[in-house]
């Protein structure tokens, strides 16, 4: 699959508590010298599989890499694209040529200068090696260096979402050719970001050290140490006892108590992730849309949300969350077993045993699967749940070896991220095998439509067809839940769940 779920730490919620961290006044001038800087200890839910930003698809990797690498542009807290390595850019009148002007004062952690060749190399690596994110360059015809600090990207058709493709997450990071060619990048990456990797002890921790020469100024922290704690209650205990300063691995059942607590800062904000059910349309009885719709009526979303997130997640029957400018209201499905029964009768379905593909690496899939199994039992479905590890899960999905599965997509920004790969008949992640010419046409039109409101209409229409025909049965948008000790300041929880420590402070 192309855009693999960045992994997932589950749990979501919605209550915009935005930036209400500690009330400390924050010194953002970057003069680290006079500050008694400290090392922040962060606990994340698992160990990165590797540290090559172009090759990994694990969220755990991106939690670390977010601080090591930069992209040409990067999303701000509202997920609007802002300058990063590119200081400014221009779009030609025909909308086919993008010219990026790069910062001339940036160097990699190994001391070499960052120049336009690095951008060209990074992008060509993704395109030529057909890496997981190559689809983000589908519309790109060429990436050229005009001079040392200017890059020109030519596209075959107007591509309104090019910026979010280039900078949406660190999977599009600018890497150093030398670092890649030597093969060190997977364990010792060299980036341009605010922190540099100082040590990596497999199975134990990853230590980062501040990069005083970062273009946004030297970080306030002297460094960050990531440790890996997979069990949320253990991570929580570590945070409470002061073993770590920050974690995103918080048991959702405790969120309610923690938000009110004085001894810890816990924030819950809505995310752009979504979780869904998909059925294998290539196989009976799922090839009949009525059977899929019956499932959509049969599942008890409220119970699922309560069980997986303790009410922190937000029910949604489409993918795009309510806070997004691309949101479309849609509530076709209610928990209605009678309607489900009627649809199944109409489709001539008479019951049978089905395999539900969940994975123990995303425990919410196993939890929800048990509720769904209970929901479907009265309809004549005997659901058996398999819960392999995630890599096996991906194999099974890609080889079509499932009846029904549940998974989530993380880190979506543009509506194209939400729908194209998953529901276009040629989409790279259309594992369920959905084919609808109207949807194809709408999604293709959305890729080139430059007027924002027309574009929103196209995606709104496509999304409703997708949900009507139950290509995916959308379940909910999770929340980002992160917590830290009160000594941590100037940290902001982001709805794309990217973890940026570059402005963060820590009192001793």
């Amino acid at each position, binding site marked *: 699959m192309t855009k693999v779920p960045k992994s997932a730490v589950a749990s979501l919620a919605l209550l915009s508590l935005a930036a209400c961290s500690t009330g400390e006044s924050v010194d953002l001038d970057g003069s680290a010298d006079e500050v008694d800087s400290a090392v922040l200890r962060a606990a994340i839910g698992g160990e990165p599989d590797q540290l090559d930003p172009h090759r990994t698809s694990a969220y755990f990797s991106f939690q670390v890499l977010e601080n090591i690498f930069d992209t040409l542009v990067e999303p701000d807290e509202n997920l609007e694209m802002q300058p990063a390595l590119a200081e400014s850019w221009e779009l030609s009148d025909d909308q086919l040529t993008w010219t990026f002007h790069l910062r001339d004062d940036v160097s990699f952690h190994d001391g070499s200068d960052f120049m336009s060749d690095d951008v060209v190399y990074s992008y060509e690596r993704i395109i030529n090696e057909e890496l997981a994110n190559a689809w983000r360059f589908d519309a790109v015809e060429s990436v050229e260096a005009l001079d040392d600090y200017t890059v020109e990207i030519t596209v075959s058709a107007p591509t309104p979402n090019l910026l979010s493709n280039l900078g949406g997450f660190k999977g599009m990071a600018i890497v150093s050719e030398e670092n890649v060619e030597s093969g060190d990048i997977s364990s010792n990456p060299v980036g341009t970001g605010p922190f540099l990797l100082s040590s990596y002890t497999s199975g134990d921790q990853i230590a980062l050290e501040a990069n005083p020469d970062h273009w946004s100024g030297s970080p306030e922290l002297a460094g960050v140490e990531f440790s890996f704690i997979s069990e949320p209650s253990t991570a929580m205990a570590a945070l409470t006892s002061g073993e770590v300063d920050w974690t995103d691995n918080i048991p959702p059942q405790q969120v309610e108590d923690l938000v009110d607590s004085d001894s810890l800062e816990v924030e819950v904000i809505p995310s752009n992730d979504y979780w869904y059910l998909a059925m294998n349309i290539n196989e009976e009885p799922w090839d009949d849309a009525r059977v899929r719709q019956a499932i959509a009526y049969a599942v008890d979303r409220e*119970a699922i949300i*309560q069980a997986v997130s303790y009410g922190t997640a937000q029910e949604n029957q489409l993918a795009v969350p309510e806070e997004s400018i691309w949101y479309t209201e849609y509530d076709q499905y209610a928990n209605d077993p009678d309607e489900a029964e009627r649809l199944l009768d109409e489709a001539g379905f008479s019951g049978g045993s089905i395999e539900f593909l969940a994975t123990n690496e995303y425990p919410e899939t196993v939890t929800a699967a048990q509720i769904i199994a*209970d929901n479907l039992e009265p309809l004549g479905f005997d*659901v*058996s749940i398999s819960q392999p590890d995630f890599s096996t899960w991906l194999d099974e999905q890609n080889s079509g070896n499932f009846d029904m599965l549940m998974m989530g997509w993380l880190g979506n920004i543009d509506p194209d991220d939400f729908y194209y790969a998953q529901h276009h008949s040629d989409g790279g992640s259309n594992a369920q095998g959905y084919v609808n010419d109207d949807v194809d046409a709408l999604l293709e039109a959305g890729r080139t439509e430059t007027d924002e409101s027309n574009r929103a209409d196209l995606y709104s229409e496509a999304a409703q067809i997708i949900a009507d025909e139950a290509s995916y049965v959308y379940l909910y948008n999770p929340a980002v839940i992160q917590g830290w000790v009160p000594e941590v300041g100037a940290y902001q929880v982001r709805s794309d769940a990217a973890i940026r420590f570059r402005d963060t402070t820590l009192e001793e």
Partner: protein
Amino acid sequence: MKQTSETGGEASQDPSGSASPASGRVAAWKLLAAHPVTLFSIFVLTCIVVVALAAPWIAPYGVNQTDVSRALQPPSAAHWMGTDDLGRDVMSRIIAATGTSMQIAVASVVFAFMVGVPIGILAGYVGGLVDAVLMRVVDVMFAFPVLLLALAIVAILTPGQLTTMIAIGVVFTPIFARVARASTLSVRVEPFVQVSRTMGTPGWWILLRHILPNITGPIVVQTSLSLAFAILSEAALSFLGLGIQPPYPSWGGMLFDAQGFMSQAWWMSVFPGAAIFIAVLAFNLLGDGLRDVLDPKQRTLAELRRKR
């Protein structure tokens, strides 16, 4: 080979039961009956078996019936052992899991018995090259830590009840083989076996009629202890997500679910844990009691005690 051991297993009951009184010794079951701890363990095991068999009728709620609005309720009159994170009745699930656990324990131990005992007897009786080859194979299997071998087997097959039975059965096979062989080695040099052999009795008849009945004691004890460890292994596999698959309940799986709620819902972990504890303890105590009765040395002591 299976056939041999099956008939053998039944045949073994007779000699040990009927021969004892004839020799003026105390019957095994009388010794057992005089042992209150053993009696108690038998009583507990009987209860467990009854619960397992009657599960569908005595479970107060549907096993997989979720109701999130009633999640994490502490023990009450409606839910004697509380509810779990999905609002399922913990007691109903423990009751349902009893049957599963027993099935797996019994099936896997029977498997290990059927395969391991014939291998052990054959190796011990025939000796020589056959013994060397079979026992080296058994040694190799012994070299793996029990759980690791079971994990490897589950990883190759797909997780599920049958796989769990096979995995635990395979892991326990070498234990039975070794116990059976060691006992056979000591029995085959006994005069009555030697005499039988010089009379030209065929090998299989000697194995069946003379060897098997006389090694029953250690094997019966081993069976009881293995049942205890099979229950533990099943719980461990299910805890790791490789045994019984959700939504179907198992004690180990329930413990796994409970670990995120240790501080909020003690009942989710305490009751399945207690179920494992009781079942394993009962089988262990029974094994101990049986050993006292069936092991000649211990038995002599017990008889002496009785006479006094």
